[in-house]
């Protein structure tokens, strides 16, 4: 049997994290009641003119720089015409002639090692609305909330050869763009979507096979399944002549686990691109270019190496922290304040992550003040606050901006150094539990822990455990 090579190129749509839409001042936030975020401009009424949201260009440039692209210093917007009820003006404003960024590359790592995927271009455009079908009344209504929400489309060269590479590439894009705060890249909310262009050819051949496109894939696992299915379908067609492959757009049905050709009408047509005369070319001067360049974050891979080589973190810890910009930012601030590397990392990886998990939040949503965390870590390290109470303070930090020390004082979480008071508590506990004292003296170490726990509880945790233990043993042995 001949061996085959799968050739894949991706078009990835990413919604930009702007407050407002690309050409009007409507909110671009996800959610809201249907048609809450609309105005005459984004629902295609006569008389409105587009005014470019400069923040969109900032984020387009940021994405371009993060993916090692060349930035077009003069970038233009063009109109793409087609009729569909979710497109109120019957044209989409996009970038056809001079996209914001071109010729980039992204490094990925798979079981076969490292590889670079070339980026053809990144262009900015507006999203379309959403059709909502009501089966009961058999009517379709349209929700324009997403209309004109800014997107970038990242077009790769056909450099990907397996589902594994595709997944690595998408995860790399997501990591880089989240780090640069370009987008939350949440596939489940549709803020990251993917069109998969796939063809199959005999290994070693330099001629591309017939290419099919699967549109609007919105989960990584669905993309993996779709690639496996589509590859098998192509090979079957080539080897067994089961069907004639044609260049077409296909819809992936994840429930059936099959792809289907879309009706020709939905895919055919001439988009009649032309430069939008209402949007002046955007000229990116040196000042603008440098401002964006300076705002770029350290790449996650560079950060990870630095955490390991310079700060001495384990690869495991560095890996977890660099999953998310929010974790890195918090870690770096906490470390800057406390000067304690391991403790700062541990507090985030275990304690903060626990709270996030309990609240069902993602790592990106960590929003506590890293400097305050640093102060808290110092309070613990200096023995001023016990571990259990420190966790309570951390919990409070998720809800409000607090100063850990002031909060500890207010809530009586400061460790007492009053040995007289501690001794008093110990004597009372020991007197009340002669059995445990006898057990301990009889050699049962566990009995000491029970007494220790009771004392700690009486003291509300505000006691250096070392001091308590020493005093307890001293008093029992008196």
């Amino acid at each position: 049997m001949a061996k085959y090579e799968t050739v894949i190129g991706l078009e990835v749509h990413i919604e930009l994290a702007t407050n407002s839409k690309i050409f009007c001042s409507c909110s671009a936030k996800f959610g809201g009641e249907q048609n809450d975020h609309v105005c005459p401009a984004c629902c295609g009424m006569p008389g409105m003119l587009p005014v470019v949201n400069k923040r969109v260009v900032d984020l387009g440039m940021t994405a371009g720089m993060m993916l090692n692209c060349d930035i077009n210093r003069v970038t233009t917007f063009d109109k793409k015409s087609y009729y569909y009820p979710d497109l109120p003006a019957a044209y989409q404003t996009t970038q056809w002639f001079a996209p914001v960024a071109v010729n980039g590359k992204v490094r990925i790592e798979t079981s076969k090692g490292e590889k670079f995927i070339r980026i053809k271009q990144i262009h900015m455009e507006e999203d379309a609305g959403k059709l909502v079908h009501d089966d009961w009344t058999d009517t379709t209504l349209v929700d324009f909330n997403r209309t004109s929400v800014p997107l970038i489309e990242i077009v790769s060269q056909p450099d990907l050869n397996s589902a594994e590479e595709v997944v690595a590439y998408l995860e790399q894009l997501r990591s880089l763009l989240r780090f640069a705060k370009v987008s939350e890249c949440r596939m489940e909310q549709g803020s990251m979507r993917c069109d998969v262009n796939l063809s199959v050819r005999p290994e070693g051949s330099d001629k591309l096979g017939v290419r099919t496109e699967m549109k609007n894939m919105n989960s990584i696992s669905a993309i993996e399944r779709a690639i496996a299915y589509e590859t098998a379908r192509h090979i079957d067609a080539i080897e067994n002549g089961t069907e004639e492959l044609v260049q077409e757009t296909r819809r992936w049905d994840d429930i059936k686990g099959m792809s289907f050709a879309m009706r020709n009408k939905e895919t055919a047509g001439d988009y009649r691109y032309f430069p939008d005369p209402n949007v002046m070319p955007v000229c990116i001067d040196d000042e603008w270019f440098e401002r964006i360049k300076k705002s770029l974050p350290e790449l996650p891979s560079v950060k990870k190496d630095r955490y390991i080589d310079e700060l001495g973190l384990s690869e495991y810890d560095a890996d977890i922290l660099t999953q998310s910009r929010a974790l890195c930012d918090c870690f770096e601030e906490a470390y800057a304040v406390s000067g304690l590397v391991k403790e700062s990392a541990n507090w985030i990886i275990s304690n903060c992550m626990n709270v996030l998990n309990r609240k069902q939040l993602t790592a990106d949503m960590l929003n506590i003040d890293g400097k305050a965390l640093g102060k808290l870590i110092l309070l613990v390290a200096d023995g001023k606050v016990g571990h259990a109470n420190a966790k309570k303070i951390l919990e409070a930090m998720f809800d409000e901006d607090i100063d850990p020390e002031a909060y500890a004082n207010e809530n009586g979480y400061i460790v007492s150094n009053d040995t007289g008071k501690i001794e008093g508590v110990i004597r009372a506990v020991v007197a009340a539990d002669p059995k445990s004292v006898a057990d301990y003296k009889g050699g049962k170490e566990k009995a000491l822990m029970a007494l220790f726990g009771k004392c700690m509880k009486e003291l509300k945790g505000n006691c250096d455990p070392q001091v308590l233990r020493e005093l307890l043993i001293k008093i029992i042995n008196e």
Partner: protein
Amino acid sequence: MKLYLDENKNAAARKVVLNDMMLTTELSTTAGSKMLEGYKSLFEAEAVTRLKAAGFEIAGKSNVGELSLGLLGETSYFGAVTDDKGNLALAANEIVKTTDAVGAVGLDANGSFLRGAALSDQVAIKPTYGTVSRFGTVSVACSGETVCVSAKSVADAQSLLCAIAGHDDKDGTSLSDSECQRLCADAPRESIKKIAVAKSLALSADEATRAKIHAVVDALKAKGIEVEPIDDSVLIAAKTAWNALMCAELCNNVSKYDGVKYGYRTKNYTNIDELYTNSRTEAFGELLKTAILFGSEALSTENYMPVYDKSLRVRRVICERFAEIFKDYGAVLMPVCSKTAYTEKDVADNKYISFDEASYIAPAYISGLPAVVVGGVLLVGAAFSENALLELAKIAEEG
């Protein structure tokens, strides 16, 4: 015969007529089309807001060709307008001629607004592109369409222009306030000493039109202004290029009128494609359909480079030619149209007469340069030279 498509009977003093391409909230805006019959906007045009702020009252919305297309207003779904001699006329000019309205303000892309003024011996100003906001106008051809003014006298036209010119954040092509202020009546200007006559364009007009050109030339010469004929062979290319650009942009701009969201919807449909097709087929007039087809072809993949892109390059060449002319001359004089009167028969005999007549207005529209209609002729000047052109217009007006 409908002069007004919607009227404000309460308007008292300093009344201004708007052509029905200008959106208003109190009155309907139809753009002369069945598609928008009865359409009321949620917001008004920036120019309307500025007129009101300057103390003008809106008298009503004058009948206009569908999407302002056509020679004058004859393509209106609401019918053509004729003057007392039975010749075709523009409703805005007829109202100004027969009432106490100060003048008219309207969006124009194919010259009907300028032709209307010329044929009724009124004054019209097409200001420099970007000096008057297009926010709140029914888009036709965004790269050249301009909000224009007309009135019985140069002074009245100028007062309207000063009221509406100025920067507007809501229009991405709006120029800065310092540039717009150069249009104000009291802004410093450099008086024009020498003008050019576009020779072949002048010769292509009929005798009566040429007589008007000569009358204006004589009046200017009497005031010591030099007048010289020039070679206008480059400017002639503007016609085909502007027709292509205008139709292409128009095709795109009117595609939002699909019967789904507002406007006319056919009763005759069983699916979305029929809804689109039948609504548009039933609501659009013939010339608009012609323009849509022509524009759609111009933008198709196979025609984009030879037609659309080439037209953009012609635009640049024309701008360069004007710049060259303005090194030696303060303005270029040319006809506004080829005759001094048109009948309905003229239009019936030649459905594309407005595309042919674009020869005269296209150089100003494709380049975005200011133009003034006075004494039945057109004076085109350099960007922001409105005041200097109006000085010439006053001389021509006084004869």
